[in-house]
C-alpha cells in the first residue's frame, strides 16, 4: 500500500496542498469571524459596564436626594421630575453616550441625555426602546438581572436598571452601541466572501490540475510502454507541460528513427562493400575461365576450326556471373519489407554462396542443416539474406583461419535459423551489449551489424537473439512460420 502511495507522490502532494488550502481558508474564516464577534462583544461589554455603573450612581444619588426631603413621597411628580432631571444631567455627564432617568409611581421621571449633541432639546424619552426599558425596570423590581441587550441590524441597545425598594423607585440607564454594521464591517464580509471563493477556486483548480496531471502521466506511461514494442507509436497529445514532454519524446523518437534509417543505409553500404570484395573474387574466376576459353577460341579461329565446348564454357561462366549479379541486386533495402511465405533453405544457401569464396580462403567450412523436412517461413528474401550474411561474415571474421560455421534450419510455431560457429561463447559483458548500436568487440568494427540485423528481423515480425546456453557462439534468427 505504501508503495502504491509513493507511486502517486505528486498527486498526494497536490491533495495535501489542497487540504492545506482548505484548512487555511477555514481557519481564516473562523479567526476573522471570531475577531469581528469578539470586537462586537467587547464593545457591548464596555457599554454594559457603563450603563450598570450609571444606573447604580443614578440610584444612589436619587436615594440621597429623596432622603434630604422629608415629604419626598408626597412631593408632586412634576417637582420630583425637575429634581431628578438635575441629578440625571449631573451623573450622566461622566458617561458619554448614556441616557437615563427614573421610574417611579408608574411614570418615567428625570430623563436626560447630557452627552447628546443637543442635550437641551433631547428631553423626550426614547420611544423605540421604551418597552425594553420598562422590561429592565420590571426585572430590577422583581430582583432579577435587569441587563437588556437588544441587537438591531446596525446597532445594539444596552439597558440596565436599579431598584430602590424603600422609595419604590428605579433608576435606569441606556446606551446605544452603533458601528456594529459600519462600512468596514460590510467590507470585511466582502473580503471574507472573496477569501472563501478564492479557497474554493483554488481547491477546484488544484483538483483539476491533479486529475489532468494524473491523466497526462498515465497517457505518457502507457505510450512509453507501447513504444517498447512498437517504434511507430507516438505519445498522445496532452495539454500544458506534459504535452511538451510528450512532444519532446515524439521528436526524439522521430530523430532516432531517422538516425536508424541512416545507419541501416550505412550498414547496407558497408555490407555491400564487404560483399563486393567477396564478389570480386567470384567474378575473377569466371572471367579467367572466359578469357581462357576466348583465347582458345581465337587460336581455333586462326586455325579455322572452332570447338563449341569453349563457347559453352563461356556461356556457363556468363550465366554464373548473371546469377551473381542478380543476387547482388536482390540486396535492396530501400523498399519496405515484402513478406512472402517461402522456403528458408534457398535463402541460407544464397547467403552461404555469397561468402563461399572468403570462407574458402580462410579455410572455414560452411554447413547447412535442415531438420524435419523443408522449413517455410514469412520473410523478405533480401533482408533475411542480409541478416544471415551479417552473421556469417561476423562468424568468419571472429574465427580467423580454420573452423566451421553451421546454419541449422528448424520449423515449428516459429521457424528459426541457428548460426553457430566453432569459436568460444561470448562473455556475459559482451552478451549484455551485443545488440547496442556502435558496440563492437572487433578492432575497427562499426558496431552496427547486429543492431541493424535485429531491427530488420523485427520489421519482419521476427527476432534475432543470442543463445547463451550453447558452448559456442550461437545466434538464433526467428520468423513467423
Amino acid at each position, binding site marked *: 500500500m505504501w508503495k502504491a502511495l509513493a507511486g502517486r507522490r505528486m498527486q498526494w502532494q497536490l491533495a495535501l496542498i489542497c487540504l492545506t488550502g482548505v484548512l487555511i481558508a477555514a481557519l481564516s474564516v473562523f479567526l476573522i469571524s471570531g475577531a469581528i464577534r469578539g470586537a462586537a462583544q467587547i464593545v457591548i461589554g464596555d457599554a454594559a459596564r457603563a450603563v450598570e455603573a450609571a444606573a447604580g450612581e443614578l440610584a444612589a444619588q436619587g436615594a440621597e436626594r429623596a432622603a434630604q426631603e422629608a*415629604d419626598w413621597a408626597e412631593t408632586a411628580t412634576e*417637582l420630583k421630575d425637575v*429634581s431628578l432631571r438635575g441629578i440625571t*444631567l*449631573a451623573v450622566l455627564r461622566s458617561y458619554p453616550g448614556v441616557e437615563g432617568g427614573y421610574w417611579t409611581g408608574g411614570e418615567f421621571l428625570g430623563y436626560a441625555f447630557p452627552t447628546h449633541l443637543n442635550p437641551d432639546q433631547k428631553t423626550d424619552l426614547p420611544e423605540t426602546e421604551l418597552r425594553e426599558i420598562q422590561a429592565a425596570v420590571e426585572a430590577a423590581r422583581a430582583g432579577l438581572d435587569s441587563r437588556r441587550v437588544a441587537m438591531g441590524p446596525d446597532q445594539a441597545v444596552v439597558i440596565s436598571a436599579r431598584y430602590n425598594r424603600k422609595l419604590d423607585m428605579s433608576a435606569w440607564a441606556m446606551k446605544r452601541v452603533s458601528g456594529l454594521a459600519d462600512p468596514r464591517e460590510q467590507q470585511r464580509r466582502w473580503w471574507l466572501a472573496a477569501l472563501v471563493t478564492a479557497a474554493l477556486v483554488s481547491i477546484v483548480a488544484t483538483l483539476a490540475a491533479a486529475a489532468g496531471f494524473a491523466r497526462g502521466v498515465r497517457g505518457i506511461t502507457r505510450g512509453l510502454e507501447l513504444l517498447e514494442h512498437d517504434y511507430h507509436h507516438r505519445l498522445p497529445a496532452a495539454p500544458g507541460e506534459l504535452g511538451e514532454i510528450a512532444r519532446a519524446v515524439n521528436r526524439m523518437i522521430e530523430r532516432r528513427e531517422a538516425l536508424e534509417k541512416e545507419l541501416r543505409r550505412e550498414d547496407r553500404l558497408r555490407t555491400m562493400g564487404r560483399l563486393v570484395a567477396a564478389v570480386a573474387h567470384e567474378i575473377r574466376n569466371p572471367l579467367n575461365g572466359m578469357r581462357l576459353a576466348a583465347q582458345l577460341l581465337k587460336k581455333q579461329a586462326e586455325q579455322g576450326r572452332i570447338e563449341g565446348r569453349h563457347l559453352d564454357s563461356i556461356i556457363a561462366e556468363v550465366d554464373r556471373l548473371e546469377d551473381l549479379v542478380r543476387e547482388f541486386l536482390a540486396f535492396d533495402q530501400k523498399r519496405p519489407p515484402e513478406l512472402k511465405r517461402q522456403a528458408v533453405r534457398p535463402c541460407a544457401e544464397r547467403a552461404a554462396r555469397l561468402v563461399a569464396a572468403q570462407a574458402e580462403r580462410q579455410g572455414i567450412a560452411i554447413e547447412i542443416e535442415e531438420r524435419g523436412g523443408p522449413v517455410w517461413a514469412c520473410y523478405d528474401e533480401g533482408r533475411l539474406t542480409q541478416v544471415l550474411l551479417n552473421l556469417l561474415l561476423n562468424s568468419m571474421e571472429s574465427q580467423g583461419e580454420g573452423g566451421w560455421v553451421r546454419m541449422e534450419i528448424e520449423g515449428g510455431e516459429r521457424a528459426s535459423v541457428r548460426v553457430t560457429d566453432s569459436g568460444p561463447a561470448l562473455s556475459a559483458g559482451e552478451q549484455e551489449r551485443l545488440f547496442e548500436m556502435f558496440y563492437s568487440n572487433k578492432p575497427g568494427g562499426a558496431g552496427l551489424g547486429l543492431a541493424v540485423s535485429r531491427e530488420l528481423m523485427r520489421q519482419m515480425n521476427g527476432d534475432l537473439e543470442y543463445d547463451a546456453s550453447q558452448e559456442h557462439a550461437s545466434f538464433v534468427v526467428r520468423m513467423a512460420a
Partner: protein
Amino acid sequence: MKRVLACALALMWLTPAVCGAEKKKGGKKKGESPEAAMAQRIERVRQRLTEVSVNDAAARNLESTARQFLADAERELAAGRVSSAQGFSQAAEALTRAVDHIRHSRETSPKGYPSREAQAERLERAYFRLQQAEYFQTQSKDPRAKGLAQAGRQFYQKARRAYDRKEARDADEFAKVCEEIVRALEYLARTAAPAREPPRLK
C-alpha cells in the same frame, strides 16, 4: 435599673429628634389648612433669617434674596397658588441655612469638624450639586437664579481653597453654603415647573 434609665434616656433623645425634624421642615399639623400652614412656615423662615443674620457681604446678598423669595411666597399664597408659594418658601429656607453656615464659618469657638476624607466627600457632593445649578437656573427662568448660581460657584471655590489650606471649618461650612444655594435654585426651578396636565390623545 441601669437598663431602664438607658431606655428612658434613649426615648428622650429620639422623641425631639423625630418630632423636631418634622417641625423643622414645616410639617403640617392635623386639621390645619395648607394655606395657614404655609403662612406659618413663611413666618418661621423670616424669623429664622433674622436670627442668623451676619455682617458679611455675600451673606447679606443671600439674606436679601431669601427675603425676596419670602415676599414672592406670600404673594403666591395670596393668589391661592400654594404649591408655588411652597417652592419660594423652601428656596428662602435653603438660603437661610446657607447664611447660617456662613455665620458658623465666622465663629471663633472651637467646634468638631469632620475628617479630611469626610471633607473631601462633602466637597464632591457640593461639586456634584453645582453641576445641576446650570439646569436649575435655566429651568427657573428667574432673573435672580443667575446670581445664585454664581454665588454657589464662588462658595465652592472658597471651600476648595480652604480645603487646600487645610482649614477644615471653612471647607466644611462653605461647601454646605454651596449645596444650600443649589438647593434654593432647585426649589426655584420647581416653582417654574408646569402644572401637571392630563395626557392628550395622540
